[in-house]
């Protein structure tokens, strides 16, 4: 159990997927201008990442490793993720429209979110067990969401500040992301 706590802390804070591993930056900068969209995206990523983490783990162990086809990992993972996202989108739209209204619009963005693919690959490279992979996927996603929401909070204010013209928008967004990453150094070495 303490191992899992350590894993969770490590994935959320210490090795934060966005700020320490540089994954998932496009949506990070894209949807963080408003708190609402940031929260929506965070939720969507958590949802999909847990599913994707589990499925890719199964595919890897029972399909690729079993047949010695590790070199097809990239190909199969992206296929699985893309179709998973599409499936989830269709499913939600039909079955749980309420949830779809909240998350659905963020789902397509996730296909090209390198955080999802990245976490799936990390799960395999770190040779996590299935439970570990699940926990790690969830925690990484939470870390992604946390960073995204914190960032959105900061960014909402920066949009209102008198940032010099050439720095406005993405430029200052990146610098702010750097500051966020700097702050996350607080957790360095804790696990």
């Amino acid at each position, binding site marked *: 159990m303490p191992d899992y706590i350590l894993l969770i802390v490590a994935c959320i804070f210490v090795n934060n997927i966005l700020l320490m591993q540089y994954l998932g930056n496009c949506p990070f900068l894209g949807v963080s201008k408003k708190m609402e969209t940031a929260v929506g995206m965070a939720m969507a990523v958590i949802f999909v990442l847990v599913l994707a983490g589990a499925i890719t783990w199964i595919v890897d162990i029972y399909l690729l490793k079993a047949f010695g086809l590790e*070199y*097809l990992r990239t190909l199969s993972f992206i*296929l699985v993720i893309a179709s998973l996202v*599409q499936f989830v989108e269709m*499913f939600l739209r*039909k*079955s749980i429209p309420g949830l779809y209204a909240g998350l659905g619009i963020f789902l397509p963005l996730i296909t090209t979110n390198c955080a999802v693919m990245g976490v799936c690959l990390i799960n395999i490279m770190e040779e996590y067990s299935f439970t570990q992979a699940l926990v790690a996927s969830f925690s990484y996603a939470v870390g992604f969401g946390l960073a995204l929401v914190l960032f959105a909070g900061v960014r909402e204010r920066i949009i209102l500040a008198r940032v010099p013209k050439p720095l406005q928008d993405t430029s200052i967004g990146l610098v702010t992301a750097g500051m966020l990453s700097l702050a996350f150094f607080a957790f360095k070495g804790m696990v």
Partner: protein
Amino acid sequence: MVSGFLVMGGLGVAIGVVLALASKVFYVYVDPKIEAVEDALPGANCGGCGLPGCSSNAVAIVAGKASASSCVVGGPDVTAEVAEVMGVAITLQEPEIAAPGCSYGYQEADVKYLYQGINDCRAATLLDGGSKICTIGCLGLGTCVNACPFGALSMGPDNLPVVDTETCTGCGTCERVCPKHIITLTSTSDRIIGEYVTDECTAPCQRNCPTGINIPGFIQEISNNNYEAALAIIKEKCPLPLICGYICPAPCELACRRNLIDEAVAINPLKRFVADYEMETEKHITPYKAPGSGQKIAVVGGGAEGLTLSYYLARLGYDPTILEAKPQLGGILRYVIAEDRLPRKVLDHEIEGILETGVQTKNNVVMGRDFHLDTLFQEGYDAVVLTKGGFDSRKILQPDQKGYDSSVKGLYIMLDFLYALANGEKVDPGQRVVIVHNGIEAIDLGRKCRKMGAQKVTIISNLKSHELPIELQGSEDLEAEGIYVKHSTVVTGLKGISSRLVRVALEDTHPIGELPEEKATIRADTLILSAGRLPEFVFVRSEDQPEPEEGEIGWETIETFRTFPGSKEGICTPPEPGRISDSSAVVKSLLSGRRLTRAIHQHFSSDSVTPIQDLVCETDTILNVTEVHEVISSNRERPHIIDVEGNSKTAWIFPDEYPGLNEASARNEAERCLKCGLICYRKQK
């Protein structure tokens, strides 16, 4: 090798099956438009548009919340594709750009207090309408500059906004945020059909010019040595600058603020100076012309009004044809005004300039003889305008004489009608007669019509009941005679079929209480208007006509701008002095022609002619100055002529020997202009 093949194949099969099933099971209807837009978008879901993914952007585009060009990755191709789906064909629209309308900044204008507060005009306006005494002046705090999303605005040195016309996209943000409505979107077409309103900065001369030339504007261009630009400004309101330069009575000069200290600026000679310049260069300066809209307009009458109308119609993208009864264009200008006053080469030059904009002409054709209202519609004209001016309304009446046929049967001027009756001519008034008149003569006429077989006579008066002659008020006896009086009513339109009148549209101008204005049409075979001239009718095709017979074309008139907005006068309002036959000077017919253009343009572009709110007119009280300070007095420049002894002397009058100003005098004279605003003017100390 094989295993790789198989595994991937298997994965593909599995995914394919799952997704195919899912798309069946979880099928949800989506607006096909959204799908089409989504198809057009790249589908990379990069989030570059600021929205989460392409499909949400598609939804936003369809909902009108995002623009067709919102996709960063796609570029212009995708934009075009999306625009196509959305049906917002990128039409050839005349570009509009922002233009500030205040010329005296905060430092130069008079202020009523020292403002301390937010650097925002709207905030300053909170405090008693802003610190300037001029209620419509630019406060110069740069709200528009900050609001401009394209960085096309900046604050000039005199605290007035400056538009970079290259970067301005005409989005209108500045217009929305400006609390003083200083900055407005404007295009050449807008300026042509525009009228001055009270919350607009206009100089006294400009307000007094019947056709509304931007006088300080063109004088400024003369100062800037830019004569062509000056001419372009003049031509936005007056297509005959040189003719006006010769014969205009120049009411503008009466209003010139310089009159308060010395002598008015020689506005008309300055106008003539630039027009002379054009004539000397032997080419016509053709200002901006809007892209073609294709409607064909027949303009009946090639006098000053018809020429003006055709010129502006052409510049707004229409396809006008002048139908002139005389062998040459020009009307009164050519056939009435003495050559001494207006040399014919000047006239020819100006008419040439008008024709160069694409106006077609047919001379020696007469309405009622060579063509009729219905034949014109059959020839494919979309509108027919009567600008027959002072000459020949009678031709309509006298059907059987001189081989003329009536073009609009049933339309008479009262004087002619009575004259014909007195001459014993046979006139058939039909079943129903409408007389537009305020006097008791209408009763006589009505009785005559009844005798000639009319069943019902309606007298229309725009006056209130108690303002009418007493005979017209006691209506019961008249009604017994079959004569009905409608007071407080105006005729707002005619409807007809082929060449005959069928109905008359009426409007109640003084409704009782707050009820909506009553609109009605009544049947009429004959419409008799008070003495005067036939109004400038604009006839357009109309589907909305009772039972036209096979092959006949229904028509109706549109309300024109002949009456001032807000006033309750119809197109056939009985004459008061200077009302219908009001073209006491050529400039007035120019105004009339230009306003007809506005009516026609509005009819074809937005389907209804909208009156302008707060139009500046003589009765309006707007800020004005009664004395000027800090202006050095100077003499008005006059043209010089060389007399027989070779001495130069000042010319006073008579065009023939009245040369225009020479360039040096013109430049001096332009400098005399105070460049007035509403209450500001250039101080010279």
